[in-house]
């Protein structure tokens, strides 16, 4: 070894290969897309059944129906009550969870591999034979309503909800909170849920992903028998237009008298998951506000101490989601923080990124990719994305190369195309008396103050 040199960072050794786990693909009866990845590091398995039962296909007056149906699924089946179902799962050490998003409903199961044969039938029964007992529906609805009401008191949720209404035109599903509103959820009853399940909990367009210490042939045999006789597909979803609420900059303050901090959101409509710019946009967002050493975090946190952290994000959905910057800052520095956020966005549009910056962002995204595939649950989530968004089978295998191919010019180009500071919607949830004068003084436009 050479003598100890503390002055210079050690050079990295040769990069080691990483390949995304091999995924076997089979078709199940009824059109369910089965994907199995064998990972035998530990005797665990993760299963996700994805159904095309998402919030974005619902009418505004029924917003929250897919979420509420998902939340009530564990309330019991035609064969057993909710508590019997829960006991049966716990007896085999399995966890079942249901999560509902814009695109669909994912029913996930996690257990030891040796228990899969006992646990998988419980998942299938839950989805194929939901009973939606009256009292379970009432309980889930009360819970959802309490959650919606609590969101209105939590400044971070309040800001995100207000920002979504500012980013998207009325009528665009993404403009509303995922779980619906008090009015829409109050209107939901048992009949809506069972009708919804009957129409939308169907195999067509959905998928079953199994990752862990398992054999694809055995899984196929097990699933073919459990899903036998299940047929149909959810009604085809309309492809809705995503219009912005405004094409000029607006600035809204939601008053929280006496708040010690301001929640800030700055953004506008972004891009869809299928946009070919997605790789360059990923690098762009990483260096703007996706990593600790991003321009926004270095400015607001490390240079100015305004905040504990700031992040930017492009929400990648079937239809264009939001580009949004989020942070929480002290009341007295709110206007300065808004000014700096806009300046950083404008700076990238005008000047583009530096070569070193792009290299670092590329290496960060490509280098951390394997770290995000450690658990069977993480790998399953990646594979489910292929089904949800119709991505190529080798998408994850090629991901790192595509990121590494992004050049400075590509990033500058997508910055000009997908960042529009002049159309930024700015939302501040904080003490209006404390923040409004400073925000007015920025000269960005009229500050619209909304009472609490």
């Amino acid at each position, binding site marked *: 070894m050479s003598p100890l040199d503390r002055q210079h960072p050690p050079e990295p050794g040769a990069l080691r290969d990483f390949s995304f786990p091999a995924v076997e693909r089979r078709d199940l009866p009824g059109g369910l897309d089965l994907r199995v990845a064998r990972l035998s590091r530990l005797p*665990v398995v993760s299963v996700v059944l994805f159904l095309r039962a998402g919030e974005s296909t619902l009418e505004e007056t029924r917003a929250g129906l897919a979420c509420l149906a998902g939340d009530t699924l564990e309330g019991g089946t035609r064969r057993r009550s909710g508590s019997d179902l829960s006991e049966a799962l716990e007896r085999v050490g399995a966890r079942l969870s249901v999560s509902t998003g814009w695109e669909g409903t994912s029913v996930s199961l996690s257990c030891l591999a040796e228990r899969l044969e006992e646990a998988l039938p419980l998942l299938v029964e839950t989805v194929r034979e939901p009973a939606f007992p009256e009292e379970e529906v009432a309980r889930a609805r009360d819970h959802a309503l309490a959650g919606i009401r609590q969101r209105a008191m939590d400044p971070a949720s309040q800001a995100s909800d207000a920002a979504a209404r500012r980013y998207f035109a009325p009528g665009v599903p993404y403009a509303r909170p995922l779980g619906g509103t008090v009015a829409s959820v109050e209107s939901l009853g048992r009949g809506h849920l069972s009708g919804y399940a009957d129409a939308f909990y169907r195999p067509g367009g959905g998928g079953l992903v199994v990752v862990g210490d398992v054999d694809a042939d055995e899984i196929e045999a097990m699933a073919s028998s459990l899903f036998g006789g299940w047929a149909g597909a959810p009604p085809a979803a309309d492809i809705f237009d995503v219009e912005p609420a405004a094409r000029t900059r607006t600035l809204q303050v939601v008053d929280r008298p006496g708040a010690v901090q301001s929640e800030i959101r700055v953004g506008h409509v972004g891009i869809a998951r299928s946009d070919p710019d997605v790789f360059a946009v990923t690098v762009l967002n990483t260096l703007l506000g996706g990593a600790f050493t991003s321009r926004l975090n270095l400015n607001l946190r490390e240079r100015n101490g305004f905040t504990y952290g700031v992040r930017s994000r492009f929400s990648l959905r079937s239809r264009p989601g939001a580009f949004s910057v989020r942070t*929480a800052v002290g009341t007295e520095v709110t206007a300065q923080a808004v000014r700096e956020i806009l300046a950083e966005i404008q700076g990238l549009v005008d000047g583009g990124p530096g070569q070193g910056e792009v290299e670092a962002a590329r290496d960060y995204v490509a*280098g951390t990719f394997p770290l995000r595939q450690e658990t069977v649950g993480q790998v399953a989530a990646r594979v489910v994305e292929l089904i949800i968004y119709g991505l190529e089978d080798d998408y994850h295998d090629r991901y790192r190369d595509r990121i590494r191919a992004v050049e400075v010019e590509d990033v500058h180009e997508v910055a000009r195309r997908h960042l529009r500071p002049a159309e930024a919607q700015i939302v501040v949830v904080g003490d209006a008396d404390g923040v409004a004068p400073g925000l007015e003084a920025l000269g960005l436009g009229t500050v619209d103050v909304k009472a609490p």
Partner: protein
Amino acid sequence: MTVEGGVDVTIPYTLFTLGNGLTVIVHRDTSLPVAAVNVWYHVGSKNEQPGRTGFAHLFEHIMFEGSAHVPEGEFDILLEGAGGVNNGSTTNDRTNYWENVPANALELALWLEADRMGFLLETMTQEKLDLQREVVKNERRESVDNQPYGSAFETVYEHLYPPRHPYHWPVIGSMDDLSAATLDDVKGFFRTYYAPGNAALAIAGDVDEAEVGRLVERYFGSLPAGPPVPAVQVPEATLASDRRVVIEDDVQLPRLYMAWHGARVYTDQDAVLDVLASVLSDGKSSRLYKRLVYDGQIAQDVSAFQNGQELVGSFWIVATAKPGVDLDELEVAVRQELERLVREGVRPVERERAVNGVETSFVRSLERVGGFGGKADRLNEYHFLTGSPGFVDRDLGRYRRVTEGDLSDAVRRFLLDRHAVRLDVVPRGRRGVRADGPAG
């Protein structure tokens, strides 16, 4: 150790100690081409003095701001540029730092950790302190002051432990104490607590044990050992009577917090209380869920948990009321269920369900090599809190040994026979009863 079916679940490791007292633990796992570096310093908010609360955590922030050979800002730039992620955290008991990097960048992570362990103060400035103080104040606003129910835990701790007890104050500290921290505090703290003899370094992943040994000796071997660390004084913590506290907050529904003194982490009783918590609140057929949420419909949600810590533990039951339900009604129902559990005992199937859940979670927790709770972090935790990383092979056994009788004994001994702190968090303008004064 094996799970049913005979599959081995353990973390094989080698351990050695450098001449300066630094403990090094190495675990090889070649599943992915990544390396996890994890450093624990045996210092947390328990080592602070009243008037300087929040300092251990503030110090953690300063550790990322550069050292003699790493200019300010470079720490994160080098790691992120190498395709790595890193973070740190502070609890009452310890401070940890970790880097997850592509395996070919292991040496970079070790160089960075060694530099801040050995040479932090050379480039320490008032500006760095002032800036991170502002960041931490914003962290406090975000996680406590501006967060519904955000001050509940620190309020309960304040009443559960007397003023001189190391768990009396919150890890994040108070605004006044954060303002009072000086550059001399930073220097003294580093010299006292950030020496190799008060630290342990765990490395896990696609690494070669012999190579790790050479690199660690190279970068850490010459750092000075440092003085012995002052012992923490732990006054006895018992409650002479039940305490009741009420705070108002920006919340929709009132929430009840009940807390008792529990058992130290990694003791047999700690496992008993973990299993008890599961019997009480995991799943729809758990006792408190069934009574309060499912059948009784008086609570929105309920959870019970054992918080085992290094010096002492605490056991918690937290329930959110349904609209219109009084928190007294929740407490009565909770106590009736606890009494019923002692009277009627726990059924074997309840115990079995809870232990099966623990087993699955345990195996899943071994999936990640790095980060919070990953294998490197676990090895350091076992080392510091039980004396040996090898405790991983005995950990699950504590749960498997728990009997139904242990569970009812624990309810009597830890909960019914002891006094509790009860905190009500209620919507603004709805305070019914005045708060008691703080403990002691």
